[in-house]
């Protein structure tokens, strides 16, 4: 049990500090895109873009909505997503938790923070997938063009009617993934350090 109440080694402590530095500013400057969608059609060779930030959705919204209304898709508007209200705050709180973990220097805070963060990430992914499903399944029955129900790609490439759609995580998500990976990395570093000191102890005995 004392493992959980132990302190971190200096290296691991610094890594947790890094996680705090990445997460803390999100509420104040949510500048990195979380997700990006690019859509090409024969008459849109330059492509239409949707960019999702922690607090907003930007890009060729008017055009995408205008084109989508022909198939009865609900118009996309930032005000529909209550996620934008809590996502930046949540990420900053995770950063705060990491900061406290690093400052107070107790392993249990770090582990708890990482586990809640993991749960939160899983929830956000499923939430995003649900949104995509809803946009492709709640089609207006009065639409001019009736398409079979569809789900836009969560990640990767998909041909949808005359559009080629590519969906990819943005720089913000990649950074979040790196922060998340710090959890397993710290465990690994600790495990390796433990093994080394154990080996040294054994050697010392011989």
């Amino acid at each position: 049990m004392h493992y959980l109440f132990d302190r971190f080694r200096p290296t691991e402590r610094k890594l947790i500090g890094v996680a705090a530095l990445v997460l803390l500013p999100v509420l104040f400057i949510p500048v990195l895109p979380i997700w990006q969608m690019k859509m090409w059609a024969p008459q849109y060779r330059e492509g239409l873009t949707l960019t999702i930030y922690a607090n907003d959705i930007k890009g060729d919204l008017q055009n995408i909505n205008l084109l989508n209304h022909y198939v009865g898709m609900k118009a996309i508007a930032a005000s529909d997503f209550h996620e934008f209200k809590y996502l930046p705050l949540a990420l900053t709180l995770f950063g705060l938790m990491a900061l406290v973990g690093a400052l107070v220097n107790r392993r249990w805070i770090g582990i708890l923070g990482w586990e809640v963060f993991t749960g939160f990430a899983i929830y956000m992914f499923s939430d995003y997938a649900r949104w995509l499903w809803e946009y492709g399944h709640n089609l207006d029955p009065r639409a001019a063009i009736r398409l079979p129900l569809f789900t836009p790609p969560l990640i990767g490439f998909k041909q949808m009617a005359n559009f080629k759609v590519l969906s990819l995580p943005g720089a913000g998500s990649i950074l979040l993934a790196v922060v998340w990976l710090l959890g397993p990395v710290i465990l690994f570093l600790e495990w390796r350090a433990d093994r080394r000191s154990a080996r040294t102890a054994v050697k010392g005995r011989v």
Partner: protein
Amino acid sequence: MKRWISIAAAAIAVVWLGAHVPGCTTAGTGGAAGSAAQKVYVKPGEHDAYYAFLSGGHSGQVFVYGMPSCRHITTIPVFTPEPAVGYGVDEESKAMLGGFSWGDAHHPGLSETDGDYDGRWLFINDMPNARIARIDLGDFKTRQIFGPIPNLSAAHACPFPTPNTEYVFAASRFSVPIPVGSYSRIEDYQKNFKGVIAGVKVSKEGVMSLGFEIVTPPFDWDLSDAGKGPSMGWQFFTCYNSEQAYDSLEVKASQAEMDYVAAVNWQEAQQAVDEGKAKQIGGAPVLDPATVPGIIYLIPVPKSPHGVDVNPSGEYICVSGKLQAEVSVFSTKKMLDAIAAKKFEGEKGGIPVLSYQDVLEAKVPVGLGPLHTQFDDKGYAYTSLFLDSQIAKWKVGAPWDVPDKIDVYYSIGHLMASEGDTRHPTGDYVVALDKLSKDRYLSVGPTHPEAAQLIDIRGPKMELLYDFPTYLEPHYAQMIKAEKLKPFTVYPLEKNEKPYAVKKAEDARVERKGRRVDAYMVVVRSHFTPDIIRVSQGDTVYFHITNVEQDDDIAHGFGILWSSKNMQIEPGETKTMRWVAEKAGVTPFYCSNFCSALHQEMQGYLEVAPAGTKHAAVERPDARRVAEVAALMRHQ
């Protein structure tokens, strides 16, 4: 090894970029090597290196061509209504046309900064109605038509902007008694008829207003060019008919050995007006050179001169005597010296006349019927020869010789060199603008198209590259490097401040005040809101239509059946159209500009009830429709 791999990768990347980045490969800007076909070929999807603006002559329009491909890109309506886009149909452009439905557009003049094209505006004259239009090169739309300029009668020497677009000019070609509308017996021509030269101020925003006018004897003022460098501040005008004949000009105006080129000091003229030395005639401040000296001088030129063109350095004024075989080249320095020394050989209508020999620098034997001159970047001039159907290339400076000539087809009027009247011509191309096409194209009967030729002037010899027909009738043209223009393609909706704009479906409505009905409509793919409008017979309906699209190339049209009413509304634009419900019944309207997959469904009805039927003061469109359109715009 690694280093070599990275160098090879970088090289491949550079080649790939060169081949794929748009605008990176522009045709026709390379060397002079290759066949004529290769030099004019612009690959599908790629762009030309130059915009060329050809005046539309008596079609009243401006034609836009891409060079070197010689492709007709668009026609800008200027002095003539154009039903496809509704120019002269919507209330704003109708007011700008001022009741005229015809103009004769002769000379495009690109705005300049420091004597070089700056790509802001294009000015062009309407000769018969003495008007000047300004086209904004942001959206290629006519934004101002100034005139009819008071006292002016046929503005042919027009507009020829000054090096910083301080002024554009206009001068009477057919003198009349002034103010316009005054009566005189024609036999009293010399006594009562007046020539007029006008300086039109251009504001920083491009807005034209009258600066000054100068009254002259009733010569026929013909062409003009602005001085630059040492001749900055002077504007030159040629005239024919210094004989002051009023009939049979063909013979009577060709008798004198000498006509004139006038040098107008526009700074002095403006100052004289500002000092109150002008007399108000026809609502314009008119200066009389007999009482206000120092504003205008005459230089004799042989045989009914036509074009006057100042060379890029501004040192020489080249005047083509169209009934002789020479270009007379005058020296700016000699002119200024003679003026300073007050060395005059006489006066004409109060205007001092300089001596031809005092001011002449050289006579260049170019050939028969010289009309206009343009320049390259290597010190050569190119003069069109109407009678010889040729272009002569000659050296500006000793030995003033003519090293090359090329045939053109047929009877060339103006010519234009790439940026060829600026301080820094690019020296790539000359375009011959021919008056007759005869047998050059597939025959379309007696009304022939006009003809033009693209000529490569990069090498020591001129090379004919391409032959292309144009609609009636380019006179002068100007060519500007494509990268100097940055057109925009969508009017930002948030900057639309038109009083009748409605940007939200919730605001769409039909308002009534007595017999006037204002229909505030929103258009977006693929519907009008409202699409049913109820009025009564005898009502005057103003349709205020806002296109709330913000996408490239998604214009909507609005055409009313059994009428002459149609207009196009560009993305982000608001336009107003007036229509009178003359008969009771039902009149459909529709989107006339193909916009989208359901363009065909973009239609509506005007329900015209018998006269006297009562309507609500405000009628709003169907709530469900409003909600649907509002949903599309929710992201705002």
